[in-house]
């Protein structure tokens, strides 16, 4: 299922993703204000399956997990960027949001139809007939994502252990 590309720039920080002043309203409120500083229409127009394409240092700032939760709540299928801030990258994988890097994202334009294939490490652009190569994720991170994040992954692992008894 292809979504559409939302293009954003460098240094998108966690306060732009989950603005601190809406923290008390929970993930619902945070999601409604997600990225409003750079894309005022984002929360209203993004649809499940859409993909964020960003520049350098995506997710800089605080370690708040809500930055990932807001994007998941809106149904964002994944983020492709030149680079990610370390803690955001960890949080995204652990909460089941695919995050992948690419050396060159010049072929991607805002609004393009796009499909993120984590296993093949590819961002497909069907209308252009092009595929952008992504840096592959390590096997154990792919396994985490495939299960939907750390908690479901561990649930599965513990259930399997239980079944063996």
């Amino acid at each position, binding site marked *: 299922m292809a979504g559409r590309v939302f293009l954003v720039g460098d240094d998108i920080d966690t306060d732009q993703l989950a603005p601190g002043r809406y923290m008390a309203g929970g993930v619902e409120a945070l999601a409604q204000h997600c990225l409003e500083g750079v894309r005022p229409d984002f929360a209203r127009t993004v649809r499940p399956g859409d993909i964020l394409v960003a520049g350098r*240092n995506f997710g*800089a700032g605080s*370690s*708040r*997990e809500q930055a990932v939760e807001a994007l998941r709540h809106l149904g964002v299928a994944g983020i492709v960027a030149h680079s990610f*801030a*370390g*803690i955001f*990258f*960890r*949080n995204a994988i*652990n*909460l089941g949001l695919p995050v992948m890097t690419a050396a060159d994202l010049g072929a991607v334009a805002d609004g393009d139809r796009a499909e993120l294939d984590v296993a093949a490490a590819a961002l497909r652009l069907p209308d252009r007939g092009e595929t952008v190569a992504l840096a592959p994720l*390590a096997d*154990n*991170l792919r396994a*985490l994502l495939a299960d939907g*994040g*750390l*908690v479901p992954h*561990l*649930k599965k692992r*513990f259930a399997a252990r239980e079944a063996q008894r």
Partner: protein
Amino acid sequence: MMATTLAEKIIARAAGRDRVRPGEVVTAQVDLAMIHDSGGPRRVQPILETLGVGLWDARKVVLISDHFVPGDTDEGARILELTRQWAKQRRVSFYDGQGICHVVLPERGHLAPGMLVVGGDSHSPTGGAFGAYMFGVGATEMAGVLATGEIWLEVPGTILLEWRNRLSPGVTAKDMMLALCGRLGMDGGGYQAVEYAGPAIAALSMQERMTLSNMAAELGAQAGLIAPDATTAAYLETAGATPGDWQGLRTDADAALAAHHVFDAAALAPQVAAPHSPANAMPVGEAPDTAIDVAYIGACTGAKYDDLAAAAAILRGRRLAPGVALLVAPASRQDQERAAADGIMAVFEAVGGRLLPNACGICAGYGAHRLGEDVTCISSTARNFKGRMGAASAKVWLASPLSVAAAAVTGRITDPRALLAERGAA
């Protein structure tokens, strides 16, 4: 044998590998997990319940209450109660109201060189001062660690921060760190491991080294390491820990580095960081003339025994400037007791400083002494983000304990060396 970094050595051992390379993702066995009352039981217990499991090894979990101590609000009291109950049920090591987690953990002998340690707090890199690879994670990951004793990590590159020569009198680890924040920026660490080295580092006490490792967080590094030496071993023996076989735990001379920066410690002046970022650092002599209302000696990075002793050296025999409030929150009970025995606490009392609990207090924005509207504060803490210590209109300048004490005496941002020199002349 290929040359490797200190970070690679520790991670390879924890991952059960001969060697690891930067960029590789490995699964490591965790030697110790540290949690506190804020990010700990109240957040991880619901996740453990979802998973339907207990702790992987209660002997490897240390719980410390510090954020909501002394529990002077209904919410704080409730969270502390929940924390105490959990500690009892789970039979983990628990330090209740004994001080700030990053200071209590090593002081009670829980850290040793070569360990891989995960902490539920962003200043967890503090453990790197002891040659342990320690880093901070959020609640979901911590729950995963508590359930399995494992964590994934991407092997970091090492950014070597080499400090040549010695600090001059009146200049401290906090000044080094603020200068680094100014030079490298808050993402200069790139989630790699920074390693502090050189003669100026070797000459520092363990508590001063802890300030450097602690604020690796402000550089955006995952860990802030210092290779263990005789100073480390001596501290650990006093704390009742076993230093173990630390001699080989260092970055080999020809190991591949992500970056290598060299600084001259002797040329460093005391620094202050203007509101609202540690990266707004400048030599104190270049700071605009600024009157202050509150001088705060507190936090894991600025109120350990050495910090208290430094501040008292300025304050002894002097008075506070009219209208200035001095607040002192010693980082741990043990450090406070030691400072009391050495006559240091009496100095704060003599000048009319207000003593606050051994806890995070206003550094975390908690308690009755949170900064009010438009207050200007000079603080020995690690972060001066807008609104962190109270009102969003409050302005917080970061500085060393010496500079905080100097400002308390003059009522303005002041080079502490001027006051030390006066003393020298007298």
